[in-house]
């Protein structure tokens, strides 16, 4: 027994040492790798959401452009503003035409003040525009997100919809759907009948069969887009 201990204690210690080293290496090297991947991930998700809905995209893109162009010339204006000021502050004391000069100086002063005010206004409006822009971007983000969820809802309803044989082109039924924040359908009402009872019923049952939709967890987005929305059923396709 003691000889076995003698023969195996050193190898055992070495083996455990190797494994401890391996575990230590994994522990210290694993994390940073993972973080890099983390940083990239959310971006991918967002871009996918925006791509899904082409509609809201042109709006934010076209709007910020003139906004970005506007502040540039406005900001440049304040530069001439300080220049007239020192000129105005040093009126020449001349006996002749003193009054005329004073009037001129006053005019200059007024102009400088006006320019200053304009510059301040430009600054304020620039900030305001920036705020508006970020707000708009947020809105468009929300819209893009909502659009992706809407696409999911349309798909689900479409999958559950079986068109009755009596459906004809040109028929359309508008259905209003009410959801609760979990995405469960609370009520389905026909707002605009197609004139064909079977068609109306099929539209209503398509929503009822879906029973539950995936909705955004953000409550403000939910309230704005999903609390109550209408679906337009047409035999050609399912449209908004």
């Amino acid at each position, binding site marked *: 027994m003691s000889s076995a201990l003698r*023969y*195996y204690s*050193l*190898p*055992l210690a*070495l*083996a*455990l040492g*190797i*494994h401890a080293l*391996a575990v230590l290496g*994994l*522990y210290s090297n*694993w*994390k940073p790798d*993972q*973080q890099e991947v*983390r940083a990239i991930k959310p971006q991918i998700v967002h871009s996918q959401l925006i791509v899904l809905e082409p509609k809201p995209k042109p709006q934010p893109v076209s709007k910020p452009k003139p906004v970005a162009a506007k502040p540039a010339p406005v900001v440049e204006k304040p530069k001439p503003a300080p220049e007239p000021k020192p000129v105005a502050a040093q009126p020449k004391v001349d006996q002749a035409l003193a009054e005329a000069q004073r009037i001129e100086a006053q005019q200059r002063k007024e102009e400088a003040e006006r320019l200053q005010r304009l510059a301040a206004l430009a600054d304020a409006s620039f900030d305001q525009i920036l705020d508006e822009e970020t707000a708009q971007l947020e809105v468009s983000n929300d819209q893009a997100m909502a659009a992706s969820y809407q696409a999911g809802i349309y798909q689900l309803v479409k999958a559950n919809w079986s068109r009755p044989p009596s459906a004809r082109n040109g028929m359309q039924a508008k259905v209003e759907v009410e959801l609760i924040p979990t995405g469960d359908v609370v009520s389905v009402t026909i707002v605009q009948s197609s004139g064909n009872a079977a068609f109306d019923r099929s539209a209503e049952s398509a929503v009822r069969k879906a029973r539950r939709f*995936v909705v955004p967890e953000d409550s403000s987005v939910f309230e704005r887009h999903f609390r109550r929305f209408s679906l337009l059923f047409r035999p050609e396709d399912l449209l908004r």
Partner: protein
Amino acid sequence: MAEQISIFELIANASLLVQLVMALLAVASVISWMMIFQRWFYIRRIQLEVEVFEEHFWSGIDLRELYNELDGQEDLNGIESVFVSGFKEFTRLADQPGAEVDTIMQGVQRAMRVALNRQEESLETHLPFLATVGSTSPYVGLFGTVWGIMNSFRSLANMTQATLASVAPGISEALVATAMGLFAAIPAVIGYNRFSSRVEGLMKRLEAFSDELGSILQRAAHGKVGGRSATRSASTHGSAH
């Protein structure tokens, strides 16, 4: 879970069976490394002893003297025990009256073969374990992985919205089992191949030695049966080489 998945969290989150597989593989890895080190030290020691003994043997020392020196010792290592058992059998048989050279040599060879077998056995201990770990632990790891992936796909079936993020952790944690299996298997296979070839080389060397000793003893037996002293002729073996 989405934040900072470390490998240890993966192991902690794995299902019980996968964890068992991982534990088994970790134990197998530790034991196989232990065996590798133990064999490494042991085979190196035996090789050194063989070299020292052969040098001593061929230095022209009197064989009976060498025998007397070794016979009293408690634990004889590989090559010494081959020499002692062969020479002991030779002295016993040669002392009997009317013994023929053939019977003496047969007895000597048999005794040396027994010692050789014993030596081979002790050199090859633990090698089957290494072979087993090397060949089975990838499969054990694969079993854990397949089981883990199976479970993660099964849970995927219950979800309405299937995303990569919902399966990826499960697959990742399942793959840890395969990684561990390979981690255990690769050193075991390398160790097994290396040690088995070294044992083979050592055994060839020991067999060659036992053949040489046999031929020396045969010469001595001829001399003894012819009426001369075995020790005197045996002690002249150095000049034969």
